[in-house]
Each structure stands twice: as structure tokens, then as C-alpha cells.
């Protein structure tokens, strides 16, 4: 039975689920753990729907719930390590089939980008994801994280600079880069 109110709820929430899954995966690097986090987020959103300010878009509200759950939860254990499997598949493909080499090369670039993201601080990573990937405005990201906009801008600027140095090899001696090298 799908009541009218429930249909409306689905119409407001479901369009944001793909982005929530992407954000959760970027934080956790594990599909099952990410979907668990998204499910927790949606359950909480549904149970608190009446508390939401209806004039506002549901997207930042949902992201704020997910981010708070992630921060408060014991969800960090799944991080690190899980990112490798996809890339090992890519390498195997490249050996077997030269036509897959480009795709494998692409995946290696992605892997480096994600690994570099992983070596940023959690605060920088979240800001880079919300703004650079999830297309939140600087103001919306500041409201969502409940920090001043200046803080968001400085995390963004420092996070991007650090990411650039990692990816351009300027921090080759850095622990973060050392981790990249170890990763096969």
C-alpha cells in the first residue's frame, strides 16, 4: 500500500539517493558499508521528516544527517584497503586484453585520485566532496557542516592544494604518497 503522503516522501527523497550513495562510498570506500550508512540516514530522515523545514530542499538536510551519522558512528573501520579490488581487476584486464589497457589506465588515475583524497584530513575530504563532487554551494556546505563559510573556504583551498601536491608528486616523501606506492 503506497499512500499519497508516502508517495510524496519518496518523490522528495529518492532523487537524492544516488548522490548520497556516492558521498557515503567516498567516505567509507566500501559499497555495503556505504549502503548501510545511506539506509541509516534514510530511516532517520523518514522518522524525522516532520521536523524538517519544508521550505528547504531535502538534499542538504539528507547530507547533513548522513554526515552526522558518519561522524558519530563507528564507521571508520571499513575505510582504507577496500579501494584496491577494483584496480587489481583493471590491471588484470590490461594484461589479458590490450583494448582494456586504456580503461585500466583510466582506473589507475582514478585510484590515485581517490587514494590522494584518502590521505587528506576528514574535514578537508568532506568539503572537497560536498563542493567539488556533490555541487553544494559554499554557503550550503557551511550550513550543512555548521561551520562559518570562511572555514569551508579554507578547508577547500588547503585540501585542494594538498591533493594537487600529492597527485603532482610534490609530496612524494609524504606518508600519504608512500601509502600510494605500497598499493598494488
Amino acid at each position: 500500500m503506497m499512500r499519497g503522503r508516502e508517495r510524496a516522501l519518496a518523490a522528495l527523497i529518492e532523487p537524492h539517493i544516488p548522490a548520497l550513495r556516492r558521498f557515503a562510498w567516498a567516505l567509507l570506500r566500501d559499497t555495503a558499508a556505504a549502503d548501510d550508512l545511506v539506509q541509516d540516514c534514510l530511516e532517520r530522515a523518514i522518522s524525522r521528516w516532520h521536523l524538517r523545514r519544508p521550505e528547504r530542499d531535502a538534499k542538504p538536510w539528507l547530507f547533513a544527517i548522513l554526515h552526522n551519522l558518519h561522524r558519530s558512528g563507528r564507521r571508520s573501520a571499513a575505510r582504507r584497503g577496500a579501494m584496491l579490488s577494483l584496480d587489481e581487476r583493471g590491471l588484470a584486464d590490461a594484461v589479458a586484453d590490450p583494448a582494456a589497457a586504456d580503461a585500466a589506465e583510466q582506473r589507475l588515475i582514478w585510484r590515485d585520485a581517490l587514494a590522494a583524497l584518502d590521505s587528506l584530513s576528514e574535514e578537508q575530504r568532506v568539503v572537497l566532496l560536498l563542493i567539488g563532487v556533490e555541487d553544494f554551494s559554499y554557503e550550503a556546505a557551511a550550513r550543512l557542516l555548521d561551520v562559518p563559510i570562511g572555514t569551508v573556504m579554507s578547508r577547500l583551498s588547503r585540501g585542494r592544494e594538498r591533493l594537487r601536491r600529492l597527485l603532482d608528486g610534490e609530496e612524494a616523501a609524504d606518508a600519504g604518497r608512500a601509502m600510494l606506492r605500497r598499493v598494488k
Partner: protein
Amino acid sequence: MAAGDAMPVGEDDLQAWVDGRLPPERRTAVDAWLAANPVAAARFRAMAAQREMLRDALRPHHDAPMPARLRVANLLAARREAQGRGQRRIAAAAAWLVLGGVLGWAGNALLPQRERPMVTEALAAHAVFAADAGRPVEISVAQEAQMLRWLSDRLGRPLVVPELGPAGYRLMGGRLLAGATGDPAAQLMYEGPRGARLTLYLRADRAGGAGAEFRYAEGTTNSVTAFWWVDRGFGYAVAAEGLNRAALLHLAEAVHRQVAGAPRPDPGL
């Protein structure tokens, strides 16, 4: 600078440039600044490229088909289900309270209470394990002391193994089971004449509506019968299959004398 009164280019402008979010006139100013600062320009161009790289790397996780468990309709259904369970549980508890009151008022159970979970479990456990030729018990009588310690520990009270030798039954061993209430339960198994099996099933049973008098129960889908009683929050059931009622009562009384050390109750048949 593009205009004499333009605001100086700041880090926020440059990040907005990376994000492609500058309004056209501001963008012109920043482009001019970048053209004059080629080293910085290379840095910010790299950042813009890396921004795209991250978006590409994460896009598959956005575009992947969504698992059905995340559908709002399914989450709502699960929520309704959970709420329904809670309400049903409350309703059932209320019904039991009313029923318990009525039965108590009516003079202590004129009706057979086959539904009592402890008894249902005892009958089922007898049917399942007494028929098991290979492994009727989990711990055999050879380790009786160890078994007693273990079961006493799990049930949270010192257990006594009734001696039924005079009645022709010897202990085979016992096992730990899970009661429907989540309480651990123990089953002791005895072997009698011609391989007949007798089991004593016991666990905490705090549900009201029963006293220390004996009650008789029959399995609904088999010929297992039992005498059972509840004594100070603990339920006992003596079960057998194909044993006449008088013989079973005699055994139940023997068990009762030893586990309770109390005076023999009146059979409430």
C-alpha cells in the same frame, strides 16, 4: 586587473574559478590575474583537472543501480512492520493479562493450557531428541558433573538430577536448548524399559497463570504427553511418548519430590 575599482583577486575567487562558479565579470578579472601569474595559473588549472578526475572516479558509484532496500517505499514498509509488531506485542501482552486474570478468577485454570510456551517446547524437544538414535543427548552421563555445572550455570540456578533408578529409568545425559522467551532451557533424558525415553525439560517460566500443581499436556501432532508444573518462577515438564497417564504421573511425582524437595502437590488433573 580588468577595472580600476575591481576587488583584489582572493583565494575564494580562485576556488570559485576552479569550481566554475564565478559570475562573468568576476571571471574576466580572475582570468586576467591568472594570465599575469603563470605559476599560480598552473596550480589552479591542475586543481580544476583533479576536481574533474574525482568526479569521474566517483561517478560509477552515483550511477550504479540502487539496491531495493534503499527504496523509500520499502523503508516505510519495514517501519510499519516494526510498529505493527510493537503494537501486536502490546495487544498480546494485554490479552494475556486479561486472560490470566479471567482464568485466575475462574478458579485456577479449568482449561488445559497446551499453549504455554514452556510446555510446547518440552513436548517438541522430546519428540525431536528422544527419537534421535545417534545423538539423543549433547553431553552424556559419563560427564554428569560437568553437565550439571554447565546447565546450572546457563540456567542460573543449581540443578538437581533426579534419580529415577527405582522406577526403572537411568540418566542418559542432557542438552541445552533455547526457550521461546529467550531463556536457556535444559533437557535431561532418561532411558527406561525397552529403550523407552523420558525427558525432563526445565527453564525459567515467569508467565503467570500456573502454580505448583501438576497439569497434563499432550502434543498436538504426536503422541508425546507430559506432566508439568511451575514452581517459584521455574517451569518443569516430564515428557514421554506412549506411556500411560498413571505411569507418567508416578514419574513426574518422583521428579518433583527431588527437584523441589517440597511436599508432594495435589495432582490438579
